[in-house]
C-alpha cells in the first residue's frame, strides 16, 4: 500500500502534513489496549457498582421511568440494518430507516393530535428549548413565558438556550397551596398576567413535573386571549392514551421526552425528544422529516423532505443546527407504540391511573405524608413530608436513606434535583406497570417507618439500629 501511495512509511504521510510544532511526539497517557474479555470484565465491574432498577424496588421518575421494554425492541434495534447505517442521505438504499421515520411521525401525530411531527430531537428538555426557537422564528418576539411546573432541567435548558436566542424567560409560579387546586399546578392567574403582546411562546407541562394533570385547555385559551404566543406543551407520551391530547387542547407545539416509549433508562440517555406541531409550523420545524413520494417507476417511497430548513442546505439560515438526532431511539418508540397498540395504550393508561391513585392515597394516609396537590395524577405524584408540628420536613434525604437501606428507593428528592425553595420537603413518586400493588404496599410500609423514625428523631434521640440493615 505504501508503494502505491509513494511513501516509504506511514510516518512519512503524517510528517509531510502535520507541522512539527503540533505533533504529539509521545504516546497518549492512557492505559494500553485490552482484550475483549478484559474490557467486558471491566465494564461489568463498573456496572456492578451501580444500583440499577433491577437491584432495588425503585419509584424514581422525574423525567425517566422504569417501564417494561418488550424484548422485540432489543431484537430490532440490534439488527445491523437498523443499528449501523447513518442518516438516510441515499434514500434508494435507506427505505427501511425512512419508513420507520414516517411511521414514527404518524404515531406521534396520532398521540398528540397534531398534524405534523419531525423524526426526533435529542431528548425532552432540549426539545422545549427547540420549540422556543421555533416560536422565535415564527413571530420574532422576545418573551418566553414558562410555567414553573416544568421539569427543572427543561427550565434550566431553556434559560441556557434563550440566552443564545436573545430572549427573556419569565417563570410563572405554582398556584399557592391555599388556592382551589392546591399547590403543584401552574397559577392560572399569574399565567394569564405574564403573557403579553410581546410573548413569543407560552410553555406548560402536561402532566406537569409534580405529576398533576393541568387544565391544558384552560391554559391554552388563557394564553391565546392574553396575547398571541405559540402555545407549547411538554407532554408525557405514555399518558396520551387516556389524556386529552394537546392538539385537542389548543396547543400549537407539543414536545416531550420519549424515553417512556420503549427506551432504556441508560442513566439518562440516549432517548429521544418528540416534537409535533400544527401545520403552519411545518416549514420551521427543526430536525429530519421523512416524506412520502414516488420513484421514477411510480413506486411508493420515502425521502428526507423539507431539507431547505436544515443546516446542510441552509447553513446560517437553517431553522435549527441539529444534524445527528435519535433515529434508533425513535425506532424503539414507534415499535413500542405498535406493540401497545390502539387498545393497549388505553389499557396501560388505565392501569397506571388506578395504581398511581392507589399509591397516592395509600402513602398520603401515612402520618406526616401529604399530597402536594389534589389534581388528578396518572403515573407520578408529589408528596410533601411534614414534621409533627406541620412544618415541612427539610430532610427528605434522611427519609430516603432509611428507605434505601431497606432496598426501597421511594422516589426523587425534588429539592435535591431543582435546588428550588418551593421544592423543599417534596418527594416525587413514580409508578409504572412494573410496580405492583404489593410493591406499593411495601413502599408504604418502608416509607411510613422512615418518616416515623425521622419524626421521632426530630422529637428526641433514639437508636435506629434495627432499621440500618443493609439491603
Amino acid at each position, binding site marked *: 500500500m505504501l508503494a502505491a501511495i509513494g511513501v516509504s512509511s506511514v510516518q512519512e504521510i503524517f510528517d509531510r502534513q502535520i*507541522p512539527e510544532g503540533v505533533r504529539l511526539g509521545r504516546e*497518549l497517557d492512557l492505559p494500553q489496549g485490552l482484550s475483549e474479555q478484559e474490557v467486558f470484565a471491566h465494564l461489568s465491574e463498573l456496572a456492578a457498582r451501580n444500583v440499577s432498577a433491577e437491584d432495588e424496588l425503585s419509584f424514581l421518575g422525574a423525567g425517566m421511568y422504569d417501564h417494561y421494554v418488550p424484548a422485540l425492541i432489543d431484537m430490532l434495534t440490534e439488527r445491523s440494518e437498523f443499528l449501523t447505517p447513518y442518516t438516510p442521505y441515499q434514500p434508494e438504499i435507506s427505505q427501511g430507516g425512512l419508513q420507520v421515520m414516517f411511521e414514527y411521525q404518524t404515531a406521534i401525530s396520532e398521540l398528540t393530535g397534531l398534524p405534523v411531527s419531525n423524526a426526533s430531537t435529542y431528548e425532552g428538555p432540549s426539545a422545549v428549548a427547540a420549540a422556543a426557537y421555533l416560536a422565535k422564528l415564527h413571530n420574532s418576539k422576545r418573551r418566553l413565558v414558562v410555567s414553573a411546573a416544568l421539569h427543572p432541567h427543561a427550565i434550566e435548558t431553556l434559560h441556557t438556550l434563550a440566552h443564545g436566542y436573545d430572549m427573556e424567560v419569565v417563570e410563572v409560579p405554582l398556584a399557592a397551596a391555599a388556592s382551589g387546586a392546591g399547590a403543584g399546578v401552574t397559577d392560572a392567574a399569574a399565567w394569564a398576567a405574564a403573557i403579553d403582546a410581546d410573548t413569543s411562546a407560552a410553555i406548560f407541562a402536561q402532566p406537569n413535573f409534580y405529576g398533576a394533570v393541568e387544565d391544558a385547555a384552560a391554559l391554552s385559551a388563557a394564553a391565546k386571549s392574553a396575547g398571541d404566543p405559540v402555545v407549547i406543551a411538554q407532554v408525557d407520551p405514555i399518558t396520551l392514551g387516556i389524556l386529552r391530547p394537546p392538539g385537542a387542547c389548543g396547543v400549537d407545539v407539543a414536545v416531550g421526552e420519549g424515553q417512556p416509549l420503549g427506551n432504556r433508562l441508560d442513566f439518562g440517555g440516549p432517548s429521544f425528544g418528540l416534537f409535533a406541531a400544527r401545520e403552519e409550523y411545518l416549514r420551521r420545524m427543526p430536525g429530519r422529516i421523512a416524506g412520502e413520494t414516488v420513484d421514477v*417507476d411510480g413506486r411508493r417511497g420515502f425521502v428526507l423532505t423539507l431539507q431547505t430548513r436544515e443546516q446542510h442546505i441552509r447553513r446560517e439560515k437553517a431553522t435549527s443546527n441539529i444534524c445527528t438526532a435519535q433515529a434508533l431511539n425513535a425506532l424503539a418508540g414507534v415499535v413500542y407504540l405498535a406493540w401497545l397498540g390502539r387498545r393497549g395504550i388505553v389499557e396501560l393508561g388505565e392501569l397506571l391511573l388506578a395504581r398511581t391513585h392507589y399509591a397516592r392515597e395509600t402513602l398520603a394516609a401515612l402520618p406526616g405524608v401529604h399530597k402536594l396537590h389534589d389534581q*388528578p395524577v396518572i403515573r407520578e405524584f408529589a408528596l410533601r413530608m411534614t414534621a409533627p408540628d406541620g412544618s415541612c420536613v427539610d430532610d427528605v434525604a434522611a427519609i430516603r436513606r432509611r428507605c434505601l437501606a431497606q432496598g426501597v428507593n421511594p422516589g426523587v428528592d425534588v429539592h435535591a434535583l431543582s435546588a428550588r425553595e418551593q421544592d423543599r420537603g417534596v418527594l416525587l413518586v413514580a409508578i409504572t406497570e412494573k410496580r405492583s400493588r404489593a410493591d406499593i404496599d411495601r413502599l408504604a410500609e418502608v416509607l411510613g417507618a422512615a418518616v416515623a423514625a425521622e419524626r421521632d428523631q426530630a422529637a428526641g434521640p433514639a437508636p435506629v439500629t434495627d432499621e440500618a440493615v443493609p439491603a
Partner: protein
Amino acid sequence: MSAIDENHLHADPGIDGHHPHHPTSAAAAGPLQRERATTIFQKGAPGRRAFVSPPLDVPMPPPEELLPPRFRREQPPRLPEVSEPEIVRHYVGISKRNFDLDSGFYPLGSCTMKHNPRLHERAAALAGHARLHPLQDPERAQGALELMFNLQGALSEISGLPHVSLQPSAGSHGELAGVLLTRAYHEDRGETRRKVLTPDTAHGTNPATVTMAGLEVVKLATNPDGGIDLDDLRAKADADVACLMLTNPNTLGLFDPNIEEIAQIVHGVGATLYYDGANLNAVMGLSRPGDMGFDIVHFNLHKSFTQPHGGGGPGSGPIAVSERIAPFLPRPVVARDDDGTFALEHDREPGSKSIGRLRGFHGNYGCFVRSYAYICSLGADGLKDASEAAVLNANYLLARLREKGVAEHLPLAYGELCMHEFVLSGGPMKRALKIKTLDLAKRLLDFGFHPPTVYFPLLVDEALMVEPTETETKETLDAFADAIAQILAEAAADPEIALGAPYATPVRRLDEVAAAKRPVIRQALD
C-alpha cells in the same frame, strides 16, 4: 438487490445485459422493487394486539373520580392493531430495505463509518448501565460516575485540553455549547463580540449553530492549498470576532499547515478558537487540538469513538475546553473527591459562571459506555494505530483513484496527500462524460457500495468526499476503486446508464421535489 444485500465486491452490478438502453424496463425490476411499501398502520386488523396488560391489582374507583371527563381523551389514538409476529415481520422486512455498515463499505466522508464492535452493545446492555436511573443517588451510581470520569479524562488527554463536559447530545449540540461558552467568556470580560469566523469549507452545523447562539457568521476563504486564506483571516480578525470555528484536518481532508499561525492571529484579537472534532479520527495520539491552540473542542463519539450511527443517531458530542473557558462549562460535570468517590459537581453557587444545562440529566450515557469500551480496547497505542490506519487507507484509496482512467475525470480537489479522507471533484467528469457526481453516486448503489458524501464541501465543484476508515481491508478499497473505474468507463461508452441509476435498489430515484412541494409526512388513516 445488490446494494443492500451483500458486500459483493466482485459482482457484476447488473443492468440487464441485453437491454443496456432500457434499464428502466420492468424486466430489470428486482423483487424488493415489486413490493410496495406498506406501513404498520396499514397492517393488522381490529382487535389484534401484542401487549398483554399486567393484572389490575388495585381497587378501581369510578373513572371520573380518577380523571374527570374533561381531561379524558375521547377516541384512542389510532395506533396500529397488530400481533407480535406481525410487528416482527414488518420491521424485519423493512430493515432489509436498508443498506448498513455490517453489510458493506460505507465511505461516507465526514462521518467516520468505522466498524462497531458488538462488545460495546453487550456492555451497554448490562442492567447496571442500561437500567440505571439518572437520578439514582451518586453514592449508588459510582460505577457510572467513574466511567464518566475516566471518559472525561481520556477525552481530555486525547484533545490536550484540561476540562470536559459530556453533556452535549451530538456534534452540533457540542458546537452550540461551544459558541455559548465563547459568548459567556467574552461577556464575562465585558465584551460583546458578534462575529464568528467560519471557513467556506465548514460543515453546515457550524454556521447554523452560530445563528442559534445569537451571533453572526463571517465566512473565511480557502487558499489554493485547501487551508485557511491567511490574508482573509487577518483582514477579518478584528475586535468584534468572538471565535474562529475550524475543522482540522478540515473537510477537504487536509491538515492546515498554518494552524499555529492561525491560532496566533485569532488569539491575537482576543477571540477563541473552536475545534470541530468530526475529523479527529485522523489525529488521535498524533496531534492534539489543545496543542494546536484550540480553546474548545467537540468530539463526535459516534464517529471517532464508534458509537453505532443508528440510522441517524443517537450520537454524543462531549466538549473539552481550556482553563480560561472552564468556569463556563455546562454543569454538572463528574469530579473525584479526595476519598476517591465520584460526584456530580453542580456549581449552584450564586456566582456561578456556568452557561447552565443544555439538556436533561448527564448526557448520552449509553454512548459513553460504548466509547469508553472502545478506548479501553484500543488503549494509547491502539488509538494511534487506528488513526494511522485510517490515514493509510485513505491515502491508498486516493492513490488507486489517481490512476489513469479515473484521475482525469475525478481529480483530487486540493493537495497531494490527505489525512483520513479526501475530496475529489466531479467537474471534469461532468464535462467530459456528461454524468454528475450524483449519477456516479447512484450508480455505486448498484455495485453494493454506499456512496461517498456528495456536494460537500461546497467550494469543490461536484464534490465527492471519501472516508474509508481504518476498519476496511485493502480488498474492499480495491474493489471500490475498481467500481469507480468501471462506472467511468461505462459512462464513457454510455452515460445513460449512470443517469438512470440505480436499478437494483428497492426503489429507484425518488421525486424529492414533489415530496417537498406537497409534503405527505404521515400515514393517512380513516
